[in-house]
């Protein structure tokens, strides 16, 4: 379990990183390394060059505005989890990040790295989708923004070219009169979820359910957002039938089975976690609705 030989570059700027990535075929970006290094050690990945971003200045900030939260490429999960300002603007960030692995991994792993890794078992890919977020991408051809829907192509696969650096991720703020919740079932505490659910409930001014969206972890090949509004649309928040929303969710997802859960069991959990998280999110939405 020792990596195959690779070259190592530690650029001091994004442009320098892009130069190396463009020049060396098979080069890949290293940030927190919590997914990449095990793949190297098991020789499941053998990049020619690791382009280590850790010495690039300016990538480690969490910027919070009224519009949302921008998370730099070197922000660790633990940093985002502890950021109270970010949690106020978009509570899902801390709620989901708390479910990312164990403290040791959260101390090293980065939120943006986990998004760029595009693992459908990752919490933050799902949260990016649910919040309607995007990533800022620097490439030799120029910089730009890629929305979540265009970003995720398949498991561990994004639409980004090889010579590109995701410099930050942007999570829009929680809309008014809305509440969120996040929950997981994992085999052991801190494991990848067997199934996770993040939800957003938005009410109208009369405290009736206006919109319900959900996104799941470890369900499907890429993160998706499911609109569950129709199951509860117009219901007064106290009387909404969240079980019906859970039942609807079960019909919308296409989970796969693996060693730890059958597809049927995952579908069961989608229903249960949807109902439970919606109940919680609705209470928060009600609190935030005068």
């Amino acid at each position, binding site marked *: *379990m*020792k*990596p*195959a*030989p690779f070259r190592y570059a530690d650029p001091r700027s994004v442009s320098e990183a892009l130069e190396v990535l463009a020049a060396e075929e098979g080069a890949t970006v290293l940030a927190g390394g919590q997914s990449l290094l095990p793949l190297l050690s*098991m*020789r499941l990945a053998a990049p020619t060059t690791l382009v280590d971003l850790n010495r690039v200045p300016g990538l480690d900030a969490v910027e919070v505005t009224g519009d949302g939260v921008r998370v730099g490429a070197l922000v660790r999960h633990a940093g985002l989890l502890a950021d109270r300002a970010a949690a106020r603007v978009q509570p899902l960030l801390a709620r989901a990040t708390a479910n990312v692995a164990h403290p040791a991994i959260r101390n090293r792993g980065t939120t943006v790295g986990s998004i760029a890794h595009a693992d459908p078992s990752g919490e933050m890919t799902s949260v990016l989708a649910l919040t309607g977020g995007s990533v800022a991408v620097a490439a030799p051809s120029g910089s730009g923004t890629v929305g979540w829907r265009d970003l995720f192509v398949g498991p561990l696969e994004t639409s980004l070219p090889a010579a590109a650096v995701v410099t930050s991720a942007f999570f829009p703020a929680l809309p008014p009169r809305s509440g969120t919740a996040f929950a997981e*079932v994992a*085999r*052991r*505490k*801190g*494991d*990848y979820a*067997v199934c996770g659910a993040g939800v957003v409930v938005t009410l109208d001014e009369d405290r009736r359910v206006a919109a319900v969206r959900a996104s799941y972890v470890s369900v499907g090949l890429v993160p998706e957002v499911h609109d569950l509004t129709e199951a509860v649309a117009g219901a007064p928040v106290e009387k909404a039938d969240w079980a019906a929303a859970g039942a609807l969710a079960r019909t919308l997802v296409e989970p796969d089975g693996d*060693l*730890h*859960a*059958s597809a*049927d*069991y995952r579908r*069961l*959990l989608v229903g*249960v976690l949807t109902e439970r998280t919606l109940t919680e999110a609705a209470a928060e939405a009600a609190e935030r609705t005068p």
Partner: protein
Amino acid sequence: MTTKLFGEPVRRREDARLITGRGRYLDDIGAGALAAAFVRSPHAHARIVDVDVDAALDVEGLVAIYTYEDLTGPLAEPLPVLIPHPQLHAPRTGYPLANGEVNHVGEPVVMVVATDRYVAEDAAERIAVTYEELPAVVGVDAARAAQHAVHEEIPDNVAARHHQETGDVEPALAASPRTLSFTQYVERSACMPLEGKGVHARWDADDRSLRVHTSTQASTSVRAAIAAKLQLSLDEVEVVAPDVGGGFGVKIVHPWPEELLVPMAAIALGREVKWTEDRREHFISSAHERQQRQEVSVGFDDDGRITALDVHVWHDNGAYTPYGIIVPIVTATQLVGPYVIPVYRVVVESVYTNTVIVTPYRGAGRPQGCFAMERTMDRIADALGLDRAVVRERNLIQPDQFPYDHHLTFQDGRPVIYDSGDYPALLGKLTALVGWDGVDALRDDAEARGKLLGVGMALYVEGTGPGPYEGGHVQVLGSGKVLVSTGLTTQGQGHETSFAQIVASELGVPIEDVEVTTGDTRRFPYAVGTFASRAAVMSGNAIALAARGVRVKALRIAADVLEADPGDLEIEDGVVQVRGTPGASIPLRTVAVLSNPLRYAFDEAAKQATQFATHDDTKPPVAEGDAPGLEHRDYYSPLRSTFASGAHAAVVEIDPATWEIDVVTYAVVHDCGNVVNPMIVEGQVHGGVAQGVGGALYERMAYDSDGQLQNASFMDFLMPYASEVPDIVIDHQQTPSPLNPLGIKGAGEAGVIPGSAALASAIEDAVGRRITSMPISPTELYDLMRSETAERTAASGRRTGVDA
């Protein structure tokens, strides 16, 4: 004795060293050594057509490549069958490197030696082995069906048919008022020590001596095996077990191929060579345990008393049988537990599969035996509508029945005779500890919170401390230090502390003066090894006997000096004194100096023992039959094993929406006779329970039908974290063993034995569906609850008023 530490919860003296990174594990040794890596079979069953190493030859830093063709002499022969048995009619073992055929994924085929492990793996990756695949036999049922054979010349895949019986079971069953028959399964798991295996070897060509460090549970026997296989004289080989990061059984197997190949390469190359097992290697090429199919028929009366028991087990032994049929024998003989079984027959068919070998893992066949017996008790209770504790109680061996002879033959070839115990008291303590009689209230409370609550229990008796022997050596130095050594090895159990407690108590010295060495053949060349909960029983008693020998000699010498009767002397705090006569004393360290008559005063203290300092010229300085030095070596060899016992109960809460299983209470009552250190014993129980919970709810070896292990990493093999291990409440009982001087019984494996049985019972109690296979996960429980064919328990029907 005021230095009486036996029985005290002395803090583990090795922990500060081990938990602050000052341990010296295998991989800490030989920083400059060459590194070995292995090409291992990617196929479960195949013929090797060709090994092409050409592409590896230009890897810079490559030193050597070895295949089977490079092995000579005894090394080219199959590995030893360590424990032969007449009923093991078709034993098979592998070769150090595969000889034309591979029988499981992970079997070593080529060894690469290079300047470091990275380079060795680079070279290994370029070696092309061509295989002709053969059909793989995976799982105990496939082996039993025998559509394909693992070893061509054994078409039925049966390695051994182990059979014991205490009477004529068929008529006894026929005459029984009631009978039940059922089939159940236990899955594979594994020891998973945090430190894998590892070997470092250094050959001194000038001295013609080989020093091998290996992460083993049996250094003396590894030494003998290396000497035999490499055709060296025993005195040319030293084997040392350094700090070992857990064993749990897998490191009692020896010689592992690497334990022979690494020394072979070190001699051939004249360089230090090291191999450190990585986690994937440990998963696919060390050892697993536990998979069995069990068919049970039991006869009983209307009160639930067993009249006859007939058990047929199919035991998956993997690709080879290096450890004989120890696990099948242990299952067969320990199954009967604390119960009177008037007529018992057991047949264990040990079958080959194309998977990793099966050798003892903590419990070593006992968890499966316990699962068979205890689930039988549960079924009898269910059939009769009786409380499960009551049925057990009615079948218990009574305190006045000891010694109790089961008329079976144990794994040490000796009779299964329980030496002591009090099982009714054990059960009584357990039901009190877990609140057995108040469970209905707990059930109602859980129901109000939307949870299904269940409780289960399991009892066991564990044969511990089998022979043939262990030894101990105790030596008092002129400095006052007391050196203690024993040949058996330590893997983190706290032997440095418990053995020091024994010596401090026996000899009357401060524990700080006692230094303990284990597993080093330079210090103590005669030993068997650490397995079967035997270290405290075997080495503990041997060391106590050695300390008593030292004490006798010390008193004799001191009596001479003090002109007193040895019977009037006592040793306290390292000082020999005349009882009741203050001032009439001599430090033990001075006695040590005087015990070795000297010509040369090499230091200040030595002056006291030189020839012009002593005056008695009427007898020789060293009396006939005596020896210089204040030391003694002694051995303990038991007549037979001593039998510890215990009882576990678990309360589980199950979420009927997600079918997650939460163990809310785990209660243990434990009896290992006299206790050397209760804190260490509790630690052993905790660790065992953690592995029991792991085996019941989390761990399995997920082989696919091609024999590929799907979960060979800590990401997918779900060893429980601290967060998954329940809080454990423990109560103790002490029925001393009459078989050994210290009255102790083994404690190492106890905690793991009843886990699957107790948790299956609790889950079954909670959900009302029969649990016939362990482990069980939430997704499997969901399937069981949806299954139309799953059997409902009669108890669930009675509780809801619906007939099952």
